[in-house]
């Protein structure tokens, strides 16, 4: 845009237009990612009905709500309405967290026919931090089963210590709130398993290990280092 020789009025208008563009460029609309497999492909560990509801309803709802909230937030920001910005914080956390967490989760799973156990650097890291994969699972599963209400169980990476850490988060809090990079997340909101496992969360947690996509977990670890 040519500013040289423009009048003050034109300059002001150009700057305001550029500023306005900056505002709308900052707002990125999120969308529901496709699953890397069909709804039925994780059977018998997670049934097709759960996968479809979980993806099309629950995850979609987070995406829709997130976009609506982000737009309100951007508008409040533009108007300098800090009260509204603060009031929207928890909705942003819920819905952005829900979107982030589920996007990770879908990639963390693989159809049972394609399952491969962990190997290479990832296996080394698991063994060095937990002794063995079995030992890690023996800590992860009960810790995750004990999440009160809704939440997630995580295998995370600490950039500070270089260690692998087992953690849990409440509701849709992302693992970053615990200062860790998410490698593997297991959703233990009741919607993740109820239609198939009812109240028996430990059974869901026992079976999920048959469909963990360790290749994806390894990729995330490499990217995090």
């Amino acid at each position, binding site marked *: 845009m040519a500013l040289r020789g423009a009048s003050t009025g034109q300059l002001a208008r150009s700057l305001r237009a550029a500023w306005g563009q900056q505002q709308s460029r900052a707002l990125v609309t999120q969308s529901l990612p496709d699953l890397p497999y069909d709804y039925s492909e994780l059977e018998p560990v997670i049934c097709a009905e759960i996968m479809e509801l979980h993806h099309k*309803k629950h995850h979609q709802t987070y995406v829709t709500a997130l976009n609506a909230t982000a737009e309100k937030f951007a508008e409040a920001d533009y108007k300098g309405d800090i009260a509204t910005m603060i009031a929207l914080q928890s909705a942003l956390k819920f819905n952005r967290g829900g979107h982030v967490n589920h996007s990770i989760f879908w990639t963390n799973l693989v159809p049972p026919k394609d399952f491969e156990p962990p190997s290479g650097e990832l296996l080394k890291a698991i063994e060095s931090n937990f002794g063995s994969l079995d030992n890690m699972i023996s800590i992860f599963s009960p810790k995750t089963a004990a999440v*009160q*209400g*809704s939440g997630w169980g995580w295998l995370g990476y600490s950039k500070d210590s270089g260690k692998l850490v087992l953690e849990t988060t409440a*509701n849709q809090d992302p693992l970053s709130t615990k200062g860790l990079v998410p490698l593997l997340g297991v959703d233990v909101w009741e*919607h993740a398993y*109820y239609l198939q496992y009812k109240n028996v969360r430990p059974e869901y947690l026992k079976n999920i290990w048959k469909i963990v996509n360790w290749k994806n977990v390894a990729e995330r670890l490499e990217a995090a280092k």
Partner: protein
Amino acid sequence: MAFTLPPLPYDYTTLEPHIDARTMEIHHTKHHQTYVTNLNAAISKFPELNGLGLVGLNKAAGTEKIPKDIATAIRNHGGGHYNHSLFWKVMTGPTDSNGPSADLKAAIDSAFGSFEAFKEKFNAAATTRFGSGWAWLVVQEDGKLAVTSTANQDNPLQMAIVDTPGIPILGLDVWEHAYYLKYQASRPGYISAWWNVAPKREATDPVVT
């Protein structure tokens, strides 16, 4: 003196079609039972707490009255046992005499303007409670009615823990296990249907054990 699972005041099928029999059975015999079992396990380590009773335990939750060792267990399982005990009592079959008593209706009209206005507030509290929790109508210390919601198995008796303490008159379970088999992702559908089976006219007294 161990806590026990109270029997339902009706059959598992009584609240159909609004709450399905399968949900009622699992909710009662599995979820509520687990809270009772775990509460007893926690209390067994500190038998002197038995004297408090279920309401007393909940009122003491989050205070030094409860040993640190079992603080979380009392909050979650003491809460869970109380909450579900109240929940079963405030519901009744859709064809039975239902709706608030004249006294409760008058109090609601006075506090919220109308029963419809109260329902709107209550439904909003139930819908917007993120994750697991409950929506409540409570009587506060000053005698005023209020609508509130709590997370997980927290309840308004737990005055050291919650924003809006009070004595619950109505409670609605919005944990997914309360509605998922029939309503799946549609919590609003469940909340709307619930008013067909609640409030039970006689259920204006707080639950005492």
